[in-house]
């Protein structure tokens, strides 16, 4: 192999990659928070809603989980404007990520809810809580606690798959790297560095998730 590495090119433009990294963090974190809200609403509809709502949630989850993310992204960015809904690339990217992760997370949260012992619900109802109050105060927290690790894995996958949104020129790390590459042609160096950044991001998100778990899910003793 007679390739000579020139990481200097990447170093000269470090602020472009740093900015891209920051945008990826923002985009991913926003999609995680909004996606979790979608998932909670979806799981609520699926477990407690009337039949039409359950069908609707099923249709949403199946449609998203059985089609490629890239196609979903194109549909939203190139398709929706035809229906009069115009979005910037960044908005479309966030929207697509929320819709996508919301479907996967709906299934995860639903599994957590169904894992809750029926007696918990009955105790809540017997105390006079209305069904929605039972969901909010009795079911939701323990459900999230049990599925938290699965949810975190899903969120890491989301962060990694956010690189796909560079295809519609949304601003994030991979787009910044592509841009730098087209100016310098030092693809190998750039993507080695970008790979390292994604790895570091995964570890950083994992660490943050662990810290959140320690802060939120208190030690409640043996069950």
């Amino acid at each position, binding site marked *: 192999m007679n390739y000579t590495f020139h990481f200097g090119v990447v170093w000269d433009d470090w602020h472009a990659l740093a900015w891209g990294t920051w945008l990826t963090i923002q985009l991913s974190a926003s999609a995680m928070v909004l996606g979790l809200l979608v998932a909670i609403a979806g799981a609520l509809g699926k477990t407690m809603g009337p039949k039409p709502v359950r069908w609707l949630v099923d249709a949403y989850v199946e449609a998203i989980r059985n089609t490629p993310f890239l196609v979903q992204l194109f549909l939203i960015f190139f398709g929706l404007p035809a229906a009069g809904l115009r979005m910037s690339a960044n908005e479309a990217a966030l929207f697509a990520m929320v819709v996508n992760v919301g479907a996967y997370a709906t299934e995860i949260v639903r599994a957590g809810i169904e894992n809750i*012992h029926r*007696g*918990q619900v*009955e*105790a*809540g*109802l*017997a*105390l*006079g*809580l*209305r069904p929605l*109050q039972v969901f909010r*105060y*009795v079911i939701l*927290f*323990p459900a999230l*606690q049990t599925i938290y690790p699965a949810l975190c894995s899903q969120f890491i996958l989301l962060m990694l798959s956010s690189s796909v949104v560079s295809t519609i020129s949304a601003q994030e790390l991979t787009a910044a790297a592509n841009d730098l590459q087209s100016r310098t042609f030092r693809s190998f160096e750039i993507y080695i560095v970008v790979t390292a950044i994604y790895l570091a991001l995964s570890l950083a998100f994992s660490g943050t998730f662990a810290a959140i778990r320690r802060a939120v899910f*208190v*030690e*409640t*003793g*043996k*069950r």
Partner: protein
Amino acid sequence: MSATTGAAGGEPIITLEGVSKRFGSFQALRNINLEVHRGERIVICGPSGSGKSTLIRCINQLEHHQQGRIVFDGREIGPHAHGLDQIRREIGMVFQSFNLFPHLTVLQNCTLAPMKVRSTARAEAEALARRYLERVRIPEQANKYPGQLSGGQQQRVAIARALCMNPKVMLFDEPTSALDPEMVKEVLETMIGLAEDGMTMLCVTHEMGFARSVAHRVIFMDAGEIVEQAPPETFFAHPKSERTRTFLGQILPHG
């Protein structure tokens, strides 16, 4: 104990008229007629699967009956009754498996419903909770989680949690069946304390000593029917039905 002498009078707080309940094609309750008076204490016993749990769970509509009427405090209860939650808040229930909320402390278990259902202010709800935790004799556990307590302590918290809603009636579904023998006594003592304070109680239990000392009336169920009911002295000394005698022979020491 003087409990049995204060025979309950007054108007019924719970009335069941011809109540029947099926699970699919299985008939769990057959034409149940029952009046519970204010201040009355009823013990329900019978073999496993005879419909005891189903009966008391119909009273707060954790199970929905298909035929007959259930009236609580002048209001008919049904699956579509408006304000089912409003009726439930006046009926306390204690389960065999405690069903405390594992993610909430003992105190939070007790304040949740008063705060969310009755909109009681936190300070007031906590004062109330501490009063009832005192009464079930575990005030020092207020800030622990249910998982850190023994079964007997958990069941006493469950009783305190129900009492915090100031219920007009308390339903117990085999409250001591899941407990180790040494913890049965502490829970029964708590229930006897409630009885002495005049609480209206329906208890599914096989603790016949409790029935003798506390109940005004003992009901024997079999195959979804009320087979026999009588004050405890009569019930235990002169059971009328053969089924009752067989059952008592199985559960009472020396037959």
